[in-house]
């Protein structure tokens, strides 16, 4: 049995995406149940330097996750990285440090799980007509080193043309509190990513991180200038993985 941690952003802002992720996992034969009582990994406060506050929130999530067994699947690259790579530091010297290490070791990012079930994805004969660019989540790419996995998942969809983007590994400008602290710079960074995707002529810009999606989607929506911005899980849903 695996556990699905929606993350706060997934839960509150992108619940459809979390549903799509859950369905995708089940259809690929992964026995998965959403976690109860978990809220957030603590990343917003951790990155802003507020460790005590981050620990207070992460502890609730940690203890909820500790009630589960098996892999903890996270459909948000940055949150998965926070738990895998930063919880050790966040809980260093804390009474929950051993628990944090044990739970962090079970965390896996959503597309990396699907990438182990490519045969199952193929069997579903998914179809999505159009060109797609994949945008790397910075922490998923640089802290978890996951870049081939989400692309392999996208390639399992028929009629979908995955085009390389020069900007795929350049930050979209979200950066948590950075996005509201320096909105002009943050938006300029989003434009840089979106302009590149438009130049490549993609129909959709796809990512595996609700943070990037909120940033890029929010900017694309405001400028009414495309492309569509969606999560890998939502694209799979549209491609017929229902």
């Amino acid at each position, binding site marked *: 049995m695996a556990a699905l941690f929606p993350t706060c952003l997934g*839960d*509150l802002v992108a619940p*459809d995406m979390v549903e799509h992720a859950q369905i995708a996992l089940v259809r690929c034969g992964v026995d998965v149940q959403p976690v109860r009582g978990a809220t957030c990994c603590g990343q917003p406060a951790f990155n802003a*330097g507020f460790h005590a506050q981050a620990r207070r929130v992460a502890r609730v999530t940690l203890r909820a996750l500790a009630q589960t067994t098996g892999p903890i699947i996270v459909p948000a690259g940055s949150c998965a990285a926070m738990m895998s790579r930063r919880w050790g530091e966040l809980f260093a010297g804390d009474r929950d440090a051993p628990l944090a290490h044990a739970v962090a070791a079970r965390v896996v990012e959503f597309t990396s799980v699907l990438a182990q079930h490519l045969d199952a994805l193929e069997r579903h004969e998914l179809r999505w007509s159009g060109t797609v660019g994949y945008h790397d989540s910075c922490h998923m790419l640089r*802290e978890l080193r996951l870049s081939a996995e989400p692309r392999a998942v996208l390639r399992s969809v028929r009629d979908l043309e995955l085009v390389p983007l020069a900007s795929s590994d*350049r930050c979209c400008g979200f950066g948590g509190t950075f996005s509201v602290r320096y909105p002009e710079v943050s938006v*300029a960074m989003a434009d*840089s990513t979106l302009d590149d995707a438009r130049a490549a002529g993609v129909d959709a810009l796809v990512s595996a991180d609700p943070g990037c999606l*909120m940033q890029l989607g929010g900017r694309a929506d405001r400028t009414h200038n495309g492309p569509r911005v969606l999560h890998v899980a939502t694209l799979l849903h549209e491609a017929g993985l229902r």
Partner: protein
Amino acid sequence: MSTDPLPETTFAERSRAQLARPFLRQAVPRATDTAVKDLRARFADHDYEGLRELGRQIRSRTIADLDGYLGQLVTAFAANGVQVHRAADAAEAREHIRRICREAGATRVVKVKSMATEEIALNPALEADGLQVTETDLGEYVVQLDGDTPSHIIAPIIHKTRGEIRESLSRVAGRELPDDAAELTGFARETLRDAFMDADVGISGANFGVAESGTVVLVTNEGNGRMCTSMPRVHISLMGIERVIPALEDLAVMLPLITGAGTGQLITSYVTMLSGPRREGEPDGPDQMHIVLLDNGRRALLGTEFQDVLHCIRCGACQNVCPVYRQVGGHAYGWVYGGPIGAVLSPLFRGQAVGGELPQASSLCGACDDICPVKIPLHDLLLRLRRQRVDADAAPRRERLAADLWAWAWSSPWRYRLVTRCVGAGVRVAVGIGLVGRLGPLGSWARGRTLPMLARRPFHARRDLDD
């Protein structure tokens, strides 16, 4: 620690000014992308990752015993007839250099591009003494003509158009120079040639100082480094104390790392190695060679969680890949060092009070970690500076309040559900009546982006219905 003045503007104000320059946002990405592309292409057949690891080891080993290696360096310099001066801060370093110029009876000074001399704001001090100072790196020369400052560690005029450069050089020429890179460079070369011939003192930085041999190493592409350090009677090298490396053989690793990471070159056009003034029977070289060893906040970092930043070899690669630097350029950072390394060095060298906001001016994407030739964990250092700012109670009160409120609401599943439901409803109302622009961070977000609505049925609510 230096007490030199700093701008009173904020990063937000400076970055807005830079964002308003469309040229900057074309030129900086173009130049920096080229440097990174060249690095990848030229090192494709080399074990660049292996080289980075060797570089990290050399720097780490050296800084771990900085005083030991500095002692060796000073002894070796002395044996080579080099006069060594130690400067605790910028003011002392300026004082040493002014005194050496005075004692040499100098009137004209030529300079090799050096960030250390920018760090101590040397030129205004020398000019106040009546010295005529000429920057001889083409980019720095243009910066000087314009009364500007460099905006990139190795590409000082990355922020200027060719048209602007032509205007500056035309002013010196007293005639309209043609809009042609080769012609403009040719004019600068001729003008600078006279400056080399007439100079009494040549001032350089130091890319490395080799402890075992007492050698200053300079990498340049224009040949001006060689001219400045060999033609004038006196050569002064200003070297950050951390730039020492143990042995000449370490250059086999450090040279390709600095030139590769800096300009995408396997080696620069000129590598100058200086081990003392002109000796008996030698036809050329300066009569005196001086080294000024600059601390200016460096030694204080030894033994702290920020020690790794002393491994930096000032190649500028982290600026080249930084998505924030790419948009706003180096001047937005407010002090000599821009980009990720600047966001780390400024608060460490100048204090959290003045540099404390710079670590916030990063999206923490980590691209700098992946490019740094000596693997400095810049992402971690930025996080530590943010934490230090909070621990020192230097963060604004409203930020702490926001973090406390968030932690209170998010640390209980039922509070989390209740609060987000209320906030969601409140935001919908605020958006409905057009007040969202005043809602602090939400208003900031809404400037240029559609605000994501909290779902009326969040995932946790859907699940409850399933049960």
